[in-house]
């Protein structure tokens, strides 16, 4: 009784506008390497997907024995895979196809996967313009495939909408187990689909009363043609002038059934008269309520019958419209008495295109990789509320983008998480905490000059680095501005996401590792002090030594290196920290006979040590330190899978998870402000854990009720667990 996407001939007043020029460095990026195209053409929007390979510079370290230098840093070109998704109004299709044709180099591509109700309408145009064969894919299959993909790969994909709450969008923590769920797709009609696994789904029902009913009936009643305008009308109307409420019949509430007076008893019940005029706004509002309530009720009945509690809503009726998300949420709340929450998706508009793309890319096995949202190349969620701010207004009618990077490593949960489904990495949700948000946004803005300077300095021999650094500044500043207005644009706003966004933007402009030289210099210096440090540690009594070791990990400044001025939000984590702090600590554990798994970042982030650097450092230390364990396999170095100063324990390298399991790890040490305070401060593990950091930010220290440079040393033992002789995992 329903379908997904409506095809409409008078969707918008736009005519084919070929005169628009596309800013090529922003939209349809990397077309020269593009292959595997897919397109989803809906009633008003087209979503295009393609796969590209991106060349970007990475700093690689290599052991270098012959010179005085510790290791060599070389900037190399690396090729990574990226998925591009672009959304634009159907009116731009021809322009876009022309643009793609002009820039497409790859000639291997023969086919374009297509889905959506409008695919057949534009089939000829696509085939003519691109010279590709249009291969139609089933809409529903694409939709579900896309939905599974975003739920698995994008943290904070799903959210609950609460219009009047402090933060309108409440993002859900990614549950590792996404199945089963119900997808209610509200296109012209409604389809209700039960999804049980990657390949198993069933359309269990639907309804003919959907977005098309709102649009069609709304157009008849109000003489308003556009869907968006109808929603605008509805948001200004009073449904009580048109609907017959319980109190209109009862004079008050129908007490014994618990039906309150304000409940709608009969939609349009008051308009059953020939001699009264009703305002367009009121009728549109009444219609919106009628349709939303009806869909919500059916969704609840199906959810109940199939015993499902996760219900996602999508389709053009929902698509980011606060008005409909609100009415649907209200309806679900009412009919389930709050037991089921209506869930929405940040990338709901892209599901069909993602699914169609995945269908075409099956031979590449895209599902065996982990993917990450690239914050630099993605537009983020924009609220299209009636009272939208100027930035959004400028955005509507243009282009929206999503980019996903294929991660080199497959990411999984840390097996030692107490409850993966309730784990929240971030300590403070800046989407909800307006004070903290203001502070951190200001902070990152303030630190931007320093970061730009550092980026330029990291490439002294390349004159155009200044230009790129300036582009980086503009891009990141724009992101910060966006986040100020739309904190929910990329899911929950956190210190971690602000840092990650900065890393993505730096990478975007080929500043892969601005700190590599500094790190190299500091490591070199620290290494020179290593022997003396461990000797003086060994000279201490056992108790004094433990204290000194911990202090070493915490601050790295116990050896008279002097306190550092806080120049960036994050203090250095390298050189001193690793070689003179972490390594002596690890050495102590090893000499007690404990196995140690030392995890470090896979890719660069600020001045954090990377796994590549650590491999070399450990080799060097082992060469000069006879302590047993450093040479043997009691110390295992692994990648964390992260390239961030913070750490999401639900997205760690699969190998790390495997090692943790094999070594029967029963103590986890998390070190540093990013990993132990901004994230994981409240993380509960199933084994003993130790979180240690120095608060190097006075605002945060204030907030936590301490002073600048206060120490957090948090040792937790889960009930009934005592330390056995398993390995220790050190996350630094």
């Amino acid at each position, binding site marked *: 009784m*329903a379908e997904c996407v409506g095809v409409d001939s008078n969707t918008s007043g736009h005519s084919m506008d070929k005169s628009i020029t596309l800013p090529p460095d922003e939209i349809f990026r990397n077309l020269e390497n593009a292959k595997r195209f897919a397109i989803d053409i809906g009633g008003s929007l087209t979503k295009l997907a393609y796969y590209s390979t991106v060349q970007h510079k990475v700093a690689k370290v290599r052991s270098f024995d012959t010179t005085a230098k510790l290791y060599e840093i070389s900037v190399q070109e690396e090729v990574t895979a990226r998925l591009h998704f672009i959304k634009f109004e159907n009116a731009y299709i021809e322009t876009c196809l022309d643009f793609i044709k002009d820039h497409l180099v790859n000639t291997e591509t023969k086919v374009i996967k297509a889905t959506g109700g409008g695919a057949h309408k534009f089939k000829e145009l696509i085939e003519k313009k691109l010279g590709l064969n249009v291969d139609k894919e089933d809409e529903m299959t694409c939709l579900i495939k896309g939905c599974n993909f975003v739920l698995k790969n994008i943290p904070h994909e799903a959210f609950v909408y609460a219009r009047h709450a402090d933060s309108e969008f409440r993002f859900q923590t990614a549950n590792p187990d996404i199945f089963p769920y119900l997808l209610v797709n509200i296109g*012209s009609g409604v389809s209700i689909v039960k999804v049980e696994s990657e390949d198993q789904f069933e359309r269990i029902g639907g309804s003919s009363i959907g977005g098309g009913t709102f*649009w069609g009936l709304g157009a008849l009643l109000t003489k308003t043609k556009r869907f968006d305008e109808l929603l605008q009308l509805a948001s200004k109307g009073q449904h009580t002038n048109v609907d017959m409420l319980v109190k209109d019949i009862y004079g008050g509430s129908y007490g014994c059934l618990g039906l309150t007076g304000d409940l709608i008893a009969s939609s349009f*019940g008051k308009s059953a008269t020939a001699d009264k005029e009703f305002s367009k706004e009121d009728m549109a509002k009444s219609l919106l309520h009628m349709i939303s309530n009806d869909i919500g009720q*059916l969704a609840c009945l*199906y959810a109940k019958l199939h015993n499902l509690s996760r219900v996602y809503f999508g389709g053009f009726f929902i698509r980011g419209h606060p008005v409909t998300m609100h009415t649907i949420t209200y309806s679900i709340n009412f009919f389930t008495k709050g037991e089921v929450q209506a869930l929405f998706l940040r990338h709901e508009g892209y599901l069909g295109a993602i699914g169609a793309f995945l269908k075409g890319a099956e031979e590449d096995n895209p599902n065996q990789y982990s993917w990450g949202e690239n914050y630099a190349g993605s537009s983020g969620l924009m609220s299209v509320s009636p009272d939208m701010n100027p930035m959004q207004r400028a955005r509507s009618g243009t282009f929206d983008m999503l980019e996903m990077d294929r991660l080199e490593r497959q990411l999984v949960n840390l097996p030692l998480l107490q409850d993966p489904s309730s784990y929240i990495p971030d300590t403070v949700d800046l989407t909800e905490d307006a004070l903290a948000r203001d502070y951190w946004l200001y902070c990152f803005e303030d630190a931007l000059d320093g970061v730009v300077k550092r980026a330029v300095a990291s490439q002294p021999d390349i004159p155009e680095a200044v230009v790129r650094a300036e582009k980086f500044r503009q891009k990141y500043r724009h992101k910060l501005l966006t986040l100020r207005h739309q904190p929910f644009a990329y899911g929950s706003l956190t210190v971690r996401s602000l840092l990650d966004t900065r890393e993505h933007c730096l990478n975007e402009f080929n500043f892969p590792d601005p700190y590599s030289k500094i790190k190299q210099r500091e490591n070199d210096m620290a290494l020179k002090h290593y022997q003396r440090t461990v000797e003086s540690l060994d000279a201490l009594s056992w108790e004094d030594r433990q204290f000194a070791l911990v202090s070493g990990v915490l601050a790295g400044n116990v050896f008279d290196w002097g306190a550092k001025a806080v120049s960036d939000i994050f203090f250095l984590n390298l050189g001193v920290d690793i070689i003179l702090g972490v390594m002596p600590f690890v050495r102590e554990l090893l000499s007690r006979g404990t196995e140690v798994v030392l995890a470090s970042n896979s890719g660069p982030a600020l001045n954090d040590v990377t796994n590549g650097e650590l491999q070399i450092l450990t080799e060097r230390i082992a060469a000069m330190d006879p302590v047993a364990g450093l040479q043997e396999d009691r110390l295992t170095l692994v990648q964390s899978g992260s390239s961030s100063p913070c750490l999401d324990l639900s997205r760690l390298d699969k190998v790390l998870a495997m090692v943790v399991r094999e070594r029967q790890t029963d103590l986890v040490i998390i070190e540093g402000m990013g990993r132990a305070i901004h994230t994981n401060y409240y993380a509960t593990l199933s084994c003993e854990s130790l979180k240690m950091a120095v608060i190097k930010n006075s605002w945060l220290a204030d907030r936590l009720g301490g002073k600048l440079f206060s120490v957090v040393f948090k040792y937790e033992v889960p009930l009934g667990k005592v330390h056995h002789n398993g390995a220790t995992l050190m996350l630094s």
Partner: protein
Amino acid sequence: HFVSLIKKKLTFPWFGMDIGGTLVKLVYFEPKDITAEEEQEEVDNLKSIRRYLTSNIAYGKTGHRDVHLELQDLTLCGRTGNLHFIRFPTQDLPAFLQMARNKHFSSLHTTLCATGGGAYKFESDFRTMADLQLHKLDELDCLIRGVLYIDSVMSRGLSECYYFENPTDPDHCIQKPYTLENPYPLLLVNIGSGVSILAVYSENNYKRVTGTSLGGGTFLGLCCLLTGCSTFEEALKMASDGESTRVDKLVRDIYGGDYERFGLPGWAVASSFGNMMSKEKRESVSKEDLARATLVTITNNIGSITRMCALNENIERVVFVGNFLRVNTLSMKLLAYAMDYWSKGQLKALFLQHEGYFGAVGALLELLHPS
């Protein structure tokens, strides 16, 4: 006060009243076994009310007596007589109260049992305008009581309950009587201005499963806005002359035929009013088409929700009542079809002759046999 009245001999007149959002339903028991003695004692006011109600079939401009539903030679509380079924729009209640005042109804010291939301909303109007005290009753209690009573008295002759045989074959779809023996459990769907769905397990054990605001009031309300009509009869007449497929977008309009992957037949409605998204199509449809589409949309939606409730409650028999179904064979056949088709023959749609009067009957029974 009420109980003491009951203990005395029940004085005439006997009324039951159901004041809904759109219509007031009134049942009146006319005693036919009045003795000469009684006749003499009968006060003039009572006599005039009896004569007024039984000798007319229309009251004012909007009041009607449904003569075809009248139950004759009925025995109630030891008295034999006829049960009359009268309705008028709720908006004309003031005129009714004026009449009651003119006819000095309050002098009869009768108890007026009333149900429906209006019993609460207009209670003070009854008191101030007509000096009448209402005995208010729950509408769902009355509804169920009324259904069970009417079915029991009708089974002697004509059957109260009926269904449509071959609902999916328009050429052979015929109305057939149905015996409501062992009716439980049953789903009772009352379609008035809005819709209430009850699961009934026994005479005294039922629950309201859910309801929807898309009911008879929505049909009429939307029809008035879309076509300029003003009465239910007009709207129905237009609907019967229209073609909903010009307004609705069907599965075949999108997929060219059946959507086989999901077992959706081409004739199924994919999007109600979906064709009206297009300007050209909006300009080419008639008022009749719009009325028909409204009727089909509302009816199918009630069918969907009912079917889901039946599945959730594990009930196979569904009885549809309420005034939306009055002279509305179109909707009844649609419901019969939808129940049968989408449940693959598992669900049976049943209908009752006295469609909208059960609440009023239940109220009358409460007067005679307080529960």
